[in-house]
C-alpha cells in the first residue's frame, strides 16, 4: 500500500526562499524518498542538492553510491554552472565544486523492508509505537558537527564515507527524513526521553512548520540553518 507522505522546508532565518539550499524528492508509488543538504560554503549548491535528490529517486543505486552512479549527475551540474560569463571569484568558486549531503530511502512494501544510503548528516528516523527504532546514519546528537563528509560535484569523493543500512517497517510506523539542524534537535530530544516525533506530528501544514521553526530558533533550541523534513506514514 502506498504510504502517506508530507514534506516541509524552510530557508535559514534571514535568507529568502530562493536561497534555500536543501532539496527533497518523493515518489510514494515507487517507495523512493530523498533529502539533500547543499553546503552553504559552496556555490551552485542548491542545484547540486537538487540533482542528487532527484537523481536518487529517479535511479536509486543498487548498492552504495559509487563513482559511476555519481558521474552523470556531476556532468549535469557542470553543464548548469557553465555557459554563462562569471566574474573571476565565481569562476574560481565553481571550479572547486559544490558539496551536499544525500540521504536516500527505498521502501519495499511487499517485504516491509527499507534500505537507506547516506553521505553526510541528513538523517532517517524510524518511529514505531512511540519509540525511536532506528536512527541512521547518525545515532547520537553529539555526532553533528560543522564538517560532515559530503558529496562533491567536481572534486574527489571519499567513498568510504558512504553509509548503508537496512531495516523493517510495520503498519503504523512513521519514517522521518530530515536535514541536520532538525535532526540534531530530534536526537537530542529523544536522548532526553522526550518525544520529538509527537511534536512534529502536530505540524500539519507548511505554515505551521515555519511557525514551529521560528519558535525553535528564537528559543535557541535549533541551529539557524536551512531545514527540510519528509514524513512517511505507513498505513495502519
Amino acid at each position, binding site marked *: 500500500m502506498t504510504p502517506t507522505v508530507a514534506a516541509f522546508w524552510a530557508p535559514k532565518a*534571514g*535568507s529568502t526562499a530562493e536561497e534555500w539550499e536543501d532539496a527533497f524528492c518523493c515518489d510514494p508509488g515507487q517507495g523512493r524518498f530523498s533529502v539533500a543538504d547543499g553546503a552553504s560554503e559552496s556555490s551552485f549548491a542548491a542545484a547540486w542538492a537538487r540533482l542528487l535528490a532527484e537523481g536518487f529517486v529517479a535511479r536509486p543505486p543498487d548498492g552504495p553510491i559509487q563513482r559511476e552512479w555519481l558521474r552523470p549527475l556531476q556532468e549535469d551540474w557542470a553543464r548548469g554552472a557553465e555557459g554563462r560569463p562569471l566574474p573571476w*571569484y565565481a569562476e574560481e*568558486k565553481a*571550479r*572547486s565544486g559544490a558539496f551536499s549531503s544525500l540521504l536516500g530511502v527505498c521502501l519495499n512494501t511487499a517485504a516491509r523492508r527499507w534500505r537507506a544510503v547516506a553521505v553526510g548528516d541528513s538523517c532517517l528516523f524510524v518511529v514505531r509505537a512511540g519509540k525511536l527504532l532506528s536512527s541512521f546514519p547518525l545515532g547520537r546528537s553529539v555526532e553533528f558537527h560543522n564538517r560532515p563528509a559530503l558529496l562533491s560535484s567536481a572534486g574527489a569523493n571519499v567513498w568510504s564515507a558512504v553509509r548503508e543500512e537496512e531495516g523493517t517497517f510495520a503498519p503504523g510506523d512513521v519514517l522521518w527524513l530530515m536535514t541536520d539542524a532538525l535532526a540534531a534537535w530530534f536526537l537530542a530530544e529523544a536522548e532526553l526521553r522526550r518525544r520529538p516525533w509527537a511534536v512534529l506530528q502536530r505540524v500539519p501544514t507548511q505554515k505551521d512548520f515555519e511557525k514551529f521553526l521560528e519558535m525553535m530558533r528564537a528559543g535557541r533550541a535549533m541551529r539557524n540553518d536551512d531545514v527540510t523534513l519528509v514524513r512517511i506514514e505507513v498505513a495502519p
Partner: protein
Amino acid sequence: MAYEAEVSRSNPSAFLFLIDTSGSMLDPFAGNGKRKAEGVSDAINQLLSNLSIKCSKSEGIRDYYEVGVISYGKDVKPAFGGRLAGKALAPISEVANNPAKLLERTKKVDDGAGGLAEQKVKLPVWFEARAAGKTPMCEALRLATQTLAPWAEAHPFSCPPVVVNITDGESTDGDPTADAEHLTDLTTQDGNVLLFNCHISTTKGQPILFPDTDEGLPDQYARMLYGMSSRLPDTIRESAQREGFKVSEGTRGFGFNADLVELIRFLDIGTRPSNMR
C-alpha cells in the same frame, strides 16, 4: 559568551590589516630570496582573493565581511588603490569587484587521469608591494581605532572585527602598547576587537606561531608585540588546533620569525570564517 555571533549579511564582521611598509621591508625573508614587502603583498592579495571566493555564491558575493588594509611607512593611510582608493573599510563585494589589476596565470593541475592539465587561474591584485620610510606603528593603530570605533557602534550584534598587524621591526613612534589597548577596548556585544600580530623576520630560526608564553622570545620588542596580542577565542583556537598547533587557553594571536609560508598559515587561521550564515 563571546565570539559566537553568526556572521551574516545583516550582522557582518570585519577584517582590518595593518601592514608595515617601512624601508626595511625591502630585505629578504629568512631562507628565501623574496623581499618581505613582496611576500606580504602576495599574502594579502591571496587572502583577499580567498575571502572573496568564500563569500561568493551562485547569485554573487554575499557581504559577510567588510575588509580594509592600512599601510604604515612613509605615511599611514588606507592602502587600497583604484576605485577603492581612500576607503579604510569596504564591503567584500566591492573589494572583490574592484581589484586594481586582474592577472592571469597558468597552473598545472591533476587531470584526474594520472596526468597534468593546464588551467588558467585569475590572480587579482589589490595591494602592491612598497617599502620606504620609518615604522609609525602607534599612528597605524590609532587609525585602526578611528576606523573601527564607528563600525563597532554601527554593528552592535556583529562578531567583533579582527585586526592583523604585520611588521618586521620596531615601532619608531613610541611604545604601541597603549594604542593597542585602545583598539582592543572597542567592543560589540559579542566581544572585544581582536588584535593579532605577526612579526616577520630576516634572521633564520624556528618560527613561533600561536604561543601561550613570551618565554623563548628573543628580545623585549617581540615580548611587547606578544603582550599586545589578543588571546584566541575558542573558534579560532579550535581551528589552530585542527591545523596541528599546540594551543592552550592562554594562546595568543602572535607569530614570531614567520616566513612566508607561516605568514599565510597565520592569516588563514586568523581569518577563518567560523559561523557564516
